[in-house]
């Protein structure tokens, strides 16, 4: 299996700063390709969200350059990924909290991390950024760690109500503003001729799953240029619909 990658981001209609950060790396080890992607949404209501999101991106890129080769050499195990990524997230949580205390500011970030190999995908999530799998349909891989998502799960709120609920951006936890962070992990087998998507909540609030599939379905994503054009088209659409948040998306296309 091989991969094509792309990413796009936009500060959006209202905010002066883009507090989202994104990193996508197409890698090769022993003749096999893999992708390591991270998307972080610095907290909108907090100061210096862009610093928090950049710090988490930097920490995971450091993990990738130091530890990924070693784990690949040993043979990737779900447990190793879970342990090491939890350690990175926990350490970042402590460092960002300490920075906030020392500087008298509040800052935090979500994080969605994806490692995509030929035979398995590994996803970690804190907050309400998302990972999707698109092929014939749109499948949400991650589960939001937000108040409205919890209420939907408990049957207290309908998904349609959640879209306009004033608490839709209230998170249960985030890196840098929670006492302890418990990332969710998702593992699975990647599909061939599919698209894997990471996005911030600003990207997805104003578009439906059908629109997502119409623009990003695998056969419309035949080259990195096409992928970027389609991402940009969706970002324009989201902005036209008056999205107020930063907008970020990363896409990975699998093929043979």
């Amino acid at each position, binding site marked *: 299996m091989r991969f094509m990658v792309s990413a796009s981001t936009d500060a959006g209609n209202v905010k002066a700063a883009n507090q989202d950060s994104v990193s996508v790396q*197409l890698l090769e080890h022993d003749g096999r390709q*893999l992708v390591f992607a991270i998307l972080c949404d610095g907290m909108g209501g907090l100061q210096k969200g*862009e610093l928090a999101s950049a710090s988490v991106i930097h920490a995971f890129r450091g993990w990738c350059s130091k530890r990924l080769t070693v784990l*690949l050499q040993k043979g990737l195990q779900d447990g190793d990924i879970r342990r090491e990524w939890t350690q990175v997230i926990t350490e970042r949580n402590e*460092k960002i909290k300490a*920075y906030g205390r020392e500087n008298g500011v509040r800052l935090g970030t979500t994080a969605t991390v994806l490692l995509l190999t030929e035979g398995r995908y590994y996803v970690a999530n804190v907050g309400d950024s998302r990972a999707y799998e698109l092929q014939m349909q749109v499948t949400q891989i991650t589960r939001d760690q937000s108040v409205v998502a919890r209420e939907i799960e408990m049957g207290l709120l309908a998904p349609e109500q959640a879209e306009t609920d004033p608490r839709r951006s209230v998170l249960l936890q985030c890196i840098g503003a929670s006492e302890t962070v418990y990332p969710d992990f998702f593992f699975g087998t990647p599909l061939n001729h599919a698209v894997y998507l990471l996005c911030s909540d600003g990207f997805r609030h104003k578009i439906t799953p059908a629109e997502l599939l119409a623009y990003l379905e695998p056969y419309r994503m035949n080259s990195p240029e096409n992928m970027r054009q389609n991402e940009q088209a969706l970002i324009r659409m989201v902005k036209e619909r008056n999205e107020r948040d930063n907008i970020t998306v*990363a896409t990975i296309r699998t093929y043979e």
Partner: protein
Amino acid sequence: MKREGHFREADAAASGKDIMTDGAMSETVLLGVMILAAVLLAICLVLLLIRLLGRRQRHRTARVSSLNAGSITQELPVTEVQAALRPVKVLKDIVYCESEEIIP
């Protein structure tokens, strides 16, 4: 006293026979041969033992790994060394962070 196949020298002389002419050995010669055989066998056993011990020692040395390594190899992270020899290649790198500052 006679023993079948063996002649004392006196008996041999009395009977006019050469003591070795019927294919028998004197007890002294037989004892000597036995001692010599025992010594040779012992030498062979010692050599075999030395060879076996040497092979076992070589075998042990060849099986060093990160799991059963002794004090020297414990200082060598085998997987890390192997990984360093086959690094991950970056084919494409997209990164966007507005903040130039990083919390160390």
